[in-house]
């Protein structure tokens, strides 16, 4: 972290010939700094023998004790032999209480399972209900923007896990559903179009309907069913088992810790999922057009560029982003509102799915009107 030349200045020790005299306290709050300083000393000192004198040390905790235990080993990396001396009684006790584990257990088999997490402020009445919903929304929006630029409070690999579980894993089912709906949509329209001799407009109909409307909607409904429910269940379970409380008392914001990775995971994957769903739906339409309207795939795909408007694609993408927010936020909201007990988890899950699908359809209407 800090890259400065060793100048015989550290808050943690003084160098006296080849004796390093530790001073003051060495605790979890400053051990990282101490490790940096001493490493710098090892690198720059040029001594081959050092002794570390603990007599001036007032207090240590477990982090400090382990740092001291590891000093000889760390010094060894710079070919310095180091001994530790003059520990007072109290320091000695702590060094023996917190001594490093000699035989570390090895990891035996493959890692398994990925899960998720969350906190709350809830009530019983509609006003409070709405208030806590908006409270959660604002919290989520705030942290999802803040944490874009902040790697520290992000859990390693969690974003990828979420992207996979919310987005990638939903791909087969979403594409299959979209294909079927595209096919049925074209099938239902075909007799009408044939009556008007407007067979070729099946292409426009399918493409526009899938890109701007059905693709985003099918995707959102499937994802709400799969992930909205699992987000609610996961968070509700965490609440019931006090994991949420534990996060808070460890000084971690549950919204930030549990919900934000899901927001990122869904925001990144849902637009792709939506486009792929639309494409699958168009293929479904092409199959129906071929079977019922004698429009060969060649004619269908030749006409497609004319029916494909940038605006429809954009509408679809914007919708998918809005739907992603709605699904995660609704899942999280119902998860956090859970009342004690296992049946509460089930109820939260159901409410989350129903609410997410309802809100998705309402948002679809609003966005449809805006982009009309």
């Amino acid at each position: 972290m800090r890259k400065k030349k060793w100048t015989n200045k550290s808050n943690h020790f003084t160098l006296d010939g080849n004796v390093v005299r530790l001073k003051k306290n060495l605790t979890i709050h400053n051990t990282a700094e101490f490790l940096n300083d001493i490493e710098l000393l090892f690198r720059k000192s040029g001594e081959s023998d050092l002794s570390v004198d603990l007599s001036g040390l007032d207090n240590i905790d477990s982090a400090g004790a382990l740092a001291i235990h590891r000093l000889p080993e760390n010094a060894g990396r710079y070919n310095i032999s180091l001994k530790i001396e003059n520990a007072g009684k109290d320091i000695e006790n702590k060094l023996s209480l917190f001594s490093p584990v000699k035989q570390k257990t090895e990891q035996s088999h493959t890692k398994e399972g990925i899960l998720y997490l969350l906190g709350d402020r809830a009530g019983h009445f509609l006003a409070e209900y709405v208030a806590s919903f908006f409270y959660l929304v604002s919290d989520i929006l705030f942290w999802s923007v803040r944490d874009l630029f902040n790697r520290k409070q992000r859990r390693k690999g969690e974003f990828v896990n979420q992207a996979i579980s919310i987005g990638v894993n939903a791909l087969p089912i979403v594409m299959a559903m979209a294909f079927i709906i595209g096919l049925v949509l074209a099938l239902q329209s075909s007799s009408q179009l044939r009556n008007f001799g407007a067979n070729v407009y099946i292409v426009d109909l399918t493409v526009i309907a899938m890109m701007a409307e059905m693709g985003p909607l099918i995707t959102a409904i499937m994802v709400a069913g799969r992930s909205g429910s699992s987000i609610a269940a996961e968070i509700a379970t965490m609440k019931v088992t006090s994991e949420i409380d534990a996060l808070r008392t460890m000084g971690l914001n549950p919204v930030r810790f549990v919900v934000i990775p899901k927001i990122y995971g869904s925001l990144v994957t849902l637009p792709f999922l939506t486009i792929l769903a639309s494409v699958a739906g168009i293929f479904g339409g092409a199959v129906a057009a071929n079977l019922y309207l004698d429009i060969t795939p060649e004619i269908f795909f030749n006409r497609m560029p004319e029916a494909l408007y940038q605006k429809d694609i954009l509408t679809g993408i914007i919708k998918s982003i809005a739907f992603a927010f709605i699904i995660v936020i609704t899942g999280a909201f119902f998860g956090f509102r859970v009342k004690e007990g296992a049946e509460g988890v089930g109820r939260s899950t159901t409410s989350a799915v129903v609410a997410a699908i309802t809100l998705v359809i309402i948002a679809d209407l609003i966005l449809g009107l805006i982009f009309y």
Partner: protein
Amino acid sequence: MNKEKIIEVKGLKVSFGEKEVLKNVTFSIEEGDVTVILGGSGSGKSTIMKHMLGLYPVTPNTISIFGQDIVTIDEEQELKFYLKLGVFYQNGALLNSLTVGDNVALPLEQHTNLPADAIEDLVRTKLNLVNLEDAYYLYPSQLSGGMLKRAALARAIIMDPPLLFCDEPGAGLDPVSLANLDELILKLRDQLGMTILMVTHEVTSILRVADKVLFVDNGVIAFEGTLTEARQSEIESLKDFFTVGTGGKKVTH
């Protein structure tokens, strides 16, 4: 010996809906003591603890910790406040998605700049203190109840907090593990000067570690005093705890 009062609770009242759980809870906890909260199940012991942790709203001037009314702790001070607390939850409350090692490492990863190897070192040492180093790579779902408890204790003490809350840490442990746990509690008190508040029913454990005893009954603190005083108390329901708990004659009401 005038020890500092680290926690003061005055007139805490709690109702859940219609149900009044705590009517008027008043007590204080002194620095460096192991204080045991005793009481029947459902008497509100966990509820008292959760209120002290700021997990439920409380009214001003009810609970003060480290000399500060917890109501006045704002978002900025919250982290500092929580870093001074270690909490052991009744059912462990480890994150199921992380291994035991990662669970215990979490506060260090989030709140310190320690390098990864120093973090691993600390985590393994703390797990070793609770005799659970071999569970480093296991997930909580792969642990027995007693192991979960010990893992949760390792997490609670990972930051060497000056104040440790334990909700039934000994329940379900075998006698040897329980004795080890008690020994560890005493080491934390004596060598690190931790102040420890512990809910427990294990009479053997209370006799080994308690400096002070609080007895919760009927929504109030029915007894507050030293262990010796508690054992001589004339309060029937408290007497029952000690006689039944040590295998003495069973008292029927």
